[in-house]
């Protein structure tokens, strides 16, 4: 690009904004940084980018914010992007638990990584507003031995319309080439396939969805259960989250008298496609699983084993199992084996925490839907040689 480039579209405030929604490990952070660089160094605009994390844990939701404006305009905003021009969703399972689309306007271009068609996706996820593009980014990434983030970057480039593919290629070469020169070609192919796939598409205009009020992310309000990432209002779980602590009713000093309240977290989304499957007949109640489990899931109760009174393993509490499979490794009798989660929608021997006083409460889900996360995330990990 030689001459001064002018952004063909901006929002009312003069900025062009992109937000990426992903889970840790899919490279959205790098993609955001690359888009920031694209703005600053290639388009010679003013540009900023930053990420926000729910947690450092693998598989946790990650947001990346990118903001561009004309070079003569000082880039003044450092707040998260709301009502983005382009919304890139790296993992469709996020849509089940988080209201990612709540601030979309009719102008928002939504890029969704999915194998569904645009029509199917619009219906499945109740896309309220916006111009929907879909791309099977994971399949393309696997085919090209690239990464989801490069495919998504190519697709976003196509959606933008004002960035030539060659420029994105140059960016990819400079970013990947710095550390992993041998991976340039595969990643370029991923980028190109992403670009081509979306270039052919006409967006599906979504407008008949439920119109939700635009919500500004508010990090000050603590809701019990925790809503750092507010739940989708369509999700029935969300309806009971009405108790919040504020300065009038929170115990002073941040003191927390609600003992063991993390038990109301549902961490099944941390699993990456596999569960430890419990086969009770084989269990000798040795307690090794309980000694290696970081998530305290095994429910041992007094009982009878081989005609002797002892502590008996009644099964794992899958709500809190993060699927690390430590227990499978240590089990001496194969009473715990690795199994694909999708094969066991109803988990045998699933035992809620034995000490709970009540089951009359709703769990806060953390992360995207586990059964979907898992498999695609694992496949993503299997693509060797990609960049992080």
């Amino acid at each position, binding site marked *: 690009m030689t001459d001064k480039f002018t952004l063909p579209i901006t929002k009312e*405030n003069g900025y062009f904004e992109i937000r990426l929604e992903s889970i840790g490990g899919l490279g959205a952070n790098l993609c955001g*940084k690359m888009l920031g660089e694209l703005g*600053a160094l290639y388009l010679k*605009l*003013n*540009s*900023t980018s930053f990420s926000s994390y729910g*947690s*450092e844990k693998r598989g946790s939701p990650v947001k990346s914010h990118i903001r561009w404006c004309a070079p003569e305009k*000082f*880039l003044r905003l*450092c*707040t998260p992007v709301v009502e983005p021009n382009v919304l890139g969703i790296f993992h469709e399972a996020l849509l089940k638990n988080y209201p990612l689309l709540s601030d979309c306007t009719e102008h928002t271009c939504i890029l969704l990584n999915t194998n569904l068609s645009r029509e199917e996706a619009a219906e499945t996820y109740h896309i309220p507003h916006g111009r929907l593009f879909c791309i099977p980014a994971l399949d393309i990434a696997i085919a090209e031995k690239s990464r989801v983030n490069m495919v998504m970057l190519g697709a976003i480039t196509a959606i933008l319309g004002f960035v030539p593919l060659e420029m994105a290629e140059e960016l990819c070469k400079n970013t990947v080439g710095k550390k992993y020169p041998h991976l340039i070609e595969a990643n370029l192919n991923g980028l190109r396939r992403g670009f081509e796939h979306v270039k052919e598409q006409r967006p599906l205009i979504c407008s008949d969805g439920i119109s939700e009020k635009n919500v500004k992310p508010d990090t*000050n*309000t603590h809701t*019990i259960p*925790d809503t750092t990432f507010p739940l989708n209002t369509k999700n029935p779980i969300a309806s009971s989250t009405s*108790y*919040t*602590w*504020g*300065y*009038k*009713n*929170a115990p002073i000093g*941040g003191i*927390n008298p*609600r*003992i*063991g*309240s*993390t*038990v*109301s*977290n549902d*961490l099944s989304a941390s699993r990456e496609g596999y569960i430890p499957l419990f086969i009770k007949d084989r269990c000798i109640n*040795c*307690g090794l699983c*309980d*000694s*290696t*489990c*970081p998530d*305290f899931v095994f429910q*041992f109760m*007094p009982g009878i084993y081989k005609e002797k009174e*002892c*502590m008996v*393993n009644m099964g794992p*509490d899958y*709500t809190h199992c*993060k*699927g*690390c*499979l430590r227990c499978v*490794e240590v089990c001496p009798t194969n009473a715990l084996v690795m199994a694909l989660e999708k094969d066991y929608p109803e988990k045998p021997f699933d035992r809620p925490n034995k*000490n*709970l*006083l009540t089951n009359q*409460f709703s769990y806060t889900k953390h992360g995207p839907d586990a059964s979907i996360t898992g498999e695609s995330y694992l496949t993503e990990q299997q693509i060797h040689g990609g960049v992080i």
Partner: protein
Amino acid sequence: MEKQNILYESGNELAAYAAKQINYHVMGYYPITPSTQIAENLDNMKAENLHDITLIAAEGEHSAAGICYGASTAGARVFNATSANGLLYALEQFPVQSGTRFPMVMNVACRTVSGPLCIKGDHSDIMYMLNTGWIILFAHSPQMVYDLNILGLKLAEKVNLPVAIAFDGFFTSHQKQKCMVFEDDNVVQSFLGDKNPTYSLLDLKHPITIGSYMNEPDVMNNRYQIHLAMRDASTYLPTLFTEYEKISGRHYDTIEGYRYDDAEIMLIVLGSSYHTAKEAIDKLRDEQDLRIGAVTLISLRPFPKTLINYFPAARTIIILDRQDSYGAEGGNLSMEIRSSFYRKTHARILSRVYGLGGKDLFVEDVLAIIKECIHPRASLFAYYGITEGQIGEKQPEYFAPLTEEEQSPGITVCNYDCESRKMIVTSGKLSDATAMPMRIAPGHGACPGCGIPVNLNLLLKGIEGNVVVLFQTGCGMIITTGYPKTAFRIPYIHNLFQNGAATLSGVEAAFQELKRRGEYPEGDITFLMVSGDGGMDIGMGSALGTALRNQHVILFEYDNGGYMNTGYQLSYSTPKGAKSSTSHLGKNQYGKTFFHKDTPEIMAATHIPYVATVAESNPTDFIKKAAKAAAYSRDFGTAYIKALSACPLNWNDKPNLERSVIAAAVDSCYFPLYEVEQGITTLNYNPITNNKKIPIEKWFSMMGRTKHLVQEEYSDIVADIQAEVDRRFARLIARSENRLL
């Protein structure tokens, strides 16, 4: 104007880049979010041979400041970076630096001060610096972080005062922006000129005494000299800005104003929020024809006298404080402005505290504040962005508090044998241990496969009866107590990791005293401190003090060999050769350069009744030692236990295999299992006699952080580590064979 390149970097990266260009002699630092990236970036550049700065990872911010002070007295150019409680921990050193008049530059990525611990940004740390005699420059953009780092050093050396460059943590420190940097490092260096220290401790031809013992009236004069130096800084700053503009093309001043000439309403705001305010001002001017403007301070110290000139038409002045001076009805920015405007304006001055703990300030928020403040009856002081809370559906009680009886299932029984002077533990079978109720609830946020909860579980299985725990800052506390939830079912307290052992000493002392006076019911409590290896670096002094007083507590260390909570910087327990974000691998560096700390030996040297190492790969041994530690802590004094704790995220290995990785560490003799009971060492497991000994390389090959060491080019380093591990192990065998050693 000098040739410049465009970079796309964050404030932290640019601070590091400026430091690289200046090529400081020494940086003493201690990692603390959000300033850590500065040291990390410099280490990364060092690994690639891009600068010669000697980077010293201290064991705490207080020491880091000491390293910097020492280096600056030796005539070196010195650099530091910190935040929040790190800054407060070092605070005592800052007046020493300024009072003895040695220049240096320290970056402060501003963050809120604990407690309740929060890592996000506000200005509560930097305001503690106002009275330290440091020059304080506040950068509101990444570009400015770069520029002020260069300007700041020149200013520091001109007036012989240290300079702090402050900027908003996360907003300015982490957000990337387009910036200009000098293409040639020499431009920066020639702008600064040669370092000509006024005094140097190393000038052997002119020996000097630094740090005199001084009383009145000399102290008065010494302080007045600092006052005069600040005045000199005020006088010199405009010249300096002009000089810098000549080479950079960028103009700075001690104050920046925006649309203030005719403004009847003026906002005063520090840092990145200044730009947000400008956005709001444009909107109000365009849409509502409000005469409104804003001003920000670049120089907090010296405080610019000309500030009032930016308020020619002001009738309402709104000061936005990102910090509160509790009880003063305003933050320190408000205090400063109000006193400097005394009798100089008739405007109504209002203060609003906003954005604490990193709460975002959207343009809409600024608009709302203005709208509220221009109301004639608006209160002069208020918080913006607080919420009352809402009493909704009753929340359930998830668990009943654990009784002493429930926590005493009799898994282990300890009896002290006076003759052998040993605590005899019976039982402790793993299958029985499942009867111990979980004192920590599931649903905590540890990574899949994390070793910390595993070790806590094994430890707590061995401790019968009531337990009160203290966690020092680290992954263990972050994953369990994220507000508004907590994983603990037993009494828990957190304190910052340089002080946990002392805090628990206080709890224990109070317990004993209350009991002695009959103000506390009968019964016993085991007091347990849980710390990472990081906490045993910065908190070593506190732990040693506790041990030397022989307080009745257990000090438990989960050693995952790094500061994992902040993104894996090296700790003193990190294995030599391991990669970390402050010991990068590069053509100039192979990873961490010094051996892992032998904390059990340090603790054993305090002659406390019980010291032990444990590993989850030997769970029964672990539980028994936990039981012993509890018995010793109740009846004899301090017990210390250390567990090697897996970190799949930063060890870069598979979560499911962690127990075998720990077993390999034990079998390689890197982490021997032994105990020192009343001064007598027992080796609990000898890999050599069990025919299980493996070379250290085998263990290294199991973790991504050390895998590179297996390559031929690092064979010398591995041999070196192997020799040290074998030497330590041989000493241990000798000690286990001789009661006097």
